């Protein structure tokens, strides 16, 4: 048995044991059992993935596992990369869940409304159902990249969707918004599945086989129209899972409403599978395509990155902000993939390889820092019951470890050195910049799209910094803005341990990105249109790019920062008067002692940028002034309201939903509003489709 097979076996066995334990074990040890076995399952994924990335490959066919079809599994370097990413996030999330679901936390009961309504219990995530589903979710995610046939992929995909939906629903009893989020999620994920399904069925039908091997071989025989249809359908389907705008509407809701370790799993691991799907189908199975595919991906990437970062900039709900930031980062990955597609179509392999490598590296980096961010947000949520930045604050003194770790992750998310986000964005920019010098005379598409792509990446870098300064500074620093925030304290140690492990990953990826050079090269080597030598080379601490005069050393930069800061501290000590630091009241212009109401709010922090992007965001303001009856110049009360609706959602979806509602009215007999029943419909529908596929294949 190879290491990969052993890893995958661990994945399956640990998940099964975890599910059993979560379902049957007594409440006392349920969390521990489910959490640790989830982590173990993740560790199995890491093992298999590392083995694949170091050059091993493995495949296997289980003819009788599925009704009417065989399960095919195969692990190559591309799968390996995603196995490692998902496995690592799963380890952290599993360990984290042990603490997160322990009794004693605060969980909001409705939306993000006042804290006094919170109930200090373990929340819905501690329920038997959720504990049992968590390992299943992780295992199904780990099996998706290992799937090597259409049926297997669709089955694992649907398992992943259903198990995650159960987890999203964890708190459905206490908050109405959860049900709303789950409905959106269920709807979007199944629409996405339908698109993938149709696309892959067309593909399989055209090539006469449903295993990836036969798809790969038969891809060239498809007509260009069919190839493009397959690409577009699967791209939209995978894109919706990746949170690509405008198919992102479920994402900010589901990621905000789920238990936080589930949010981390979804945002850091699951969305990556959408990216994986795009790469797998477009670059591997279809073996590349015409230039406009790349342009399409690039366009959606630009849209996602811009819109995601804008919404994150103005969001005041911490988890919603992180969710929108996921859309932004997926957009960046798609920019890399799209640009790689364009260059691959032009036959410019060095650039295509570099850009694709940047996209995959960014997926890894994003997974690390986003997992850490969501886990940090979860710690805050558990300690305060709050997600509303306008009511947080003062956590630096009360939750120092969480604050420090969230701070570093925010730095990474803002793409600032020495965070790991900086490295992959730098790589992406390098790829885009050299589109001029490395491509001979640039084509019109390149000449028009690359500057725009750079502008988008640059804009997201700037706005992302603003968004994460807001999230970190308003959420964690200054004085607490509410009683709940004032009484916050660190949660159980497994939560901090899980965050620390993600911090370690962030630091490693951020300071020694050269480590990723060899695995990335192996991934690129398996894609026919981008295969070209080693794009990344690490010489010690400096990252070099092959064929391009680009180099950067994050480690030296970080060391330089620390070193200079230390020298500065020493110099100030020696030159200064060595007076002790005096703690004094904040200067309040000689007037009142400052109370929390005088601290800047997240809404306010984002207001200038909201004004700047007024045309895009279209916020709704409303100020109601009520004067006294006696005189209109004496004001009795003033009420301010502001809402930033998701405009994409408000513009596109109501007509669709109205049409759906019309259908719904028609079929009221089968729909009674129960989410569980919808789930069942989805599953039965899926099985029916599988049967059809089985027959046609």
């Amino acid at each position, binding site marked *: 048995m190879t290491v990969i097979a052993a890893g995958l076996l661990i994945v399956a066995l640990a998940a099964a044991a975890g599910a059993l334990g979560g379902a049957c074990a007594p409440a006392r040890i349920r969390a521990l059992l489910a959490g640790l076995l989830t982590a173990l399952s993740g560790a199995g994924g890491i093992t298999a993935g590392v083995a694949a990335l170091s050059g091993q490959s493995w495949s296997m066919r289980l003819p009788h596992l599925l009704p009417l079809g065989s399960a095919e599994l195969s692990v190559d370097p591309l799968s390996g990369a995603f196995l490692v990413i998902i496995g690592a996030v799963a380890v952290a999330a599993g360990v984290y869940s042990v603490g997160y679901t322990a009794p004693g936390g605060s969980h909001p009961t409705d939306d993000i409304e006042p804290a006094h309504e919170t109930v200090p219990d373990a929340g819905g995530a501690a329920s038997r159902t959720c504990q049992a589903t968590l390992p299943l979710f992780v295992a199904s995610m780990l099996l998706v990249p290992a799937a090597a046939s259409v049926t297997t992929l669709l089955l694992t995909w649907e398992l992943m969707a259903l198990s995650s939906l159960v987890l999203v629903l964890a708190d459905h009893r206490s908050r109405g918004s959860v049900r709303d989020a789950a409905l959106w999620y269920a709807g979007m994920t199944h629409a996405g599945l339908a698109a993938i399904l149709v696309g892959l069925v067309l593909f399989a039908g055209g090539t006469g086989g449903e295993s990836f091997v036969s798809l790969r071989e038969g891809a060239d025989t498809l007509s260009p129209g069919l190839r493009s249809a397959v690409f577009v359908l699967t791209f939209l389907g995978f894109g919706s899972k990746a949170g690509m705008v405008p198919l992102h509407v479920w994402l900010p809701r589901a990621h905000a409403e789920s238990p936080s370790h589930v949010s981390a799993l979804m945002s850091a691991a699951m969305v990556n599978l959408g990216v994986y799907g795009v790469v797998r189908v477009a670059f591997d199975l279809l073996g590349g395509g015409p230039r406009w595919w790349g342009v399409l991906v690039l366009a959606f990437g630009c849209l996602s990155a811009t819109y995601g970062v804008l919404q994150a900039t103005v969001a005041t709900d911490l988890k919603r902000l992180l969710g929108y930031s996921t859309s932004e980062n997926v957009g960046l990955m798609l920019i890399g993939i799209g640009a790689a597609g364009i260059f691959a179509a032009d036959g410019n392999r060095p650039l295509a390889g570099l850009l694709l490598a940047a996209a995959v590296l960014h997926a890894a980096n994003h997974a690390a820092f986003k997992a850490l961010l969501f886990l940090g947000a979860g710690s805050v949520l558990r300690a305060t019951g709050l997600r509303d930045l306008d009511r947080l604050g003062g956590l630096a003194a009360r939750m120092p470890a969480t604050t420090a770790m969230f701070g570093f992750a925010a730095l990474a998310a803002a793409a600032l050195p020495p965070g790991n986000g900086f490295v992959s964005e730098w790589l992406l920019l390098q790829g*885009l910049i050299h589109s001029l010098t490395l491509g001979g005379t640039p084509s019109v598409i390149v000449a028009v799209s690359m*500057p725009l792509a750079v502008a988008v990446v640059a804009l997201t870098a700037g706005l992302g910094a*603003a968004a994460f300064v807001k999230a970190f500074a308003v959420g964690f620093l200054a004085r607490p803005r509410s009683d709940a925030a004032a009484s916050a304290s660190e949660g159980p140690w497994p939560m901090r341990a899980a965050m620390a492990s993600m911090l370690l990953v962030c630091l490693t990826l951020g300071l020694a990105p050269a480590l990723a050079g060899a695995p990335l090269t192996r991934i690129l080597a398996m894609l026919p249109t981008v295969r070209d030598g080693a794009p990344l080379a690490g010489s010690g601490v400096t990252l070099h790019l092959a064929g391009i005069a680009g180099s950067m050393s994050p480690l030296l930069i970080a060391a330089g920062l620390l070193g200079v800061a230390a020298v500065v501290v020493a110099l100030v000590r020696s030159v200064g008067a060595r007076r002790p630091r005096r703690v004094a009241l904040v200067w309040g212009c000689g007037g009142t002692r400052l109370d929390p109401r005088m601290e800047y709010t997240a809404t306010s922090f984002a207001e200038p940028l909201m004004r700047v992007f007024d045309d895009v965001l279209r916020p709704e303001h409303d100020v109601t002034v009520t004067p006294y009856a006696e005189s209109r110049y004496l004001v009795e009360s003033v009420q301010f309201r502001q809402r930033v609706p998701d405009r994409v959602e408000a513009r596109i979806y109501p007509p669709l939903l109205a049409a759906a509602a019309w259908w719904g009215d028609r079929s009221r007999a089968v729909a009674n509003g129960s989410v569980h029943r919808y789930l069942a419909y989805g599953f039965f529908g899926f099985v029916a489709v599988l049967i059809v596929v089985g027959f046609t294949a």
Partner: protein
Amino acid sequence: MTDHGVTIGSVAAALLQLVLLAAGAPYLIGMMRQVRARLEGRVGAGIGQPWRDLRKQLRKEPMRPDGTSWVFAGAPRVLLASTVLVAVVAPLLSTVSPLAGAADIFAVVSLLLLGTVALAVAGVDTGTAFGGMGASRAMTVAALAEPTILLAGFALSSRVGSSNLADIVAGTLVMPATVLSPASLLAAVAFAVVVVAETGRLPVDNPATHLELTMIHEAMVLEYAGPDLALVELAAGMRLTVLLGLGASLFLPWGIATSAAPLSLLGAAAVLVAKVAALGAILAAFEVFVAKWRLFRVPELLAGSFLFGLLAVSASFFLA
């Protein structure tokens, strides 16, 4: 391409550059205040005044406002450290630098943004309305300036096929005519606007104002006292100096040493001082003739410079 070997000469060049920038930054600020004072008919405090202020502040008592965290005390150090790092890696004196391979134009831009972020985070940490307001304004400006400067960098680096600052400067030195190319001119305009915005000069921020409600930079540092304040002011001065120096290197690179020979380094130092002083004087004089823009017109200014960046990139295609 230039070689980025670590030699005694190159280390000496980097150190000389750092010392020059650190020591010269307060004098630059003093000189700019002097220019303004003279144009207003005043005598002015002399170009050494910022140094006198710094020396005194360093000896004063450090303070920590109640309710702030480690971020408050840490921010000035990070701000200064990021600035110093940029001051070391930027090719202002010579194109040979021991660290040139470690940080390119994007790294430099990100390091500068890191400093801005550090100060903004500390501004919020004070828990005052002013700190938060200054932070919000600073981040708004930075969020819009960042894309501009990246685009300008794109335009400059695509010309030489490298984002390495030393390569860009060396490329210009080899082909001086490229300085007058449309791409370079447009990038220079974009860069100039960003320098004005990022360093808080008129018409974006008024470095001389004492009105809390209108300030950007000053609002964030209202709570700093003694050595902390000295560090912040020194870093702010150095940022301005570095950015002016960088502008001079990228758009007027003449006089930069291409080796680390002591004599050419000294000559380059003299040229650098002259160029930065001239740019500073021009900036200060320009400030006398403009008023401060309404806060929400500042984004228009930055959108304009963003467009110039984009045009610079486009022009490098059109007129390649």
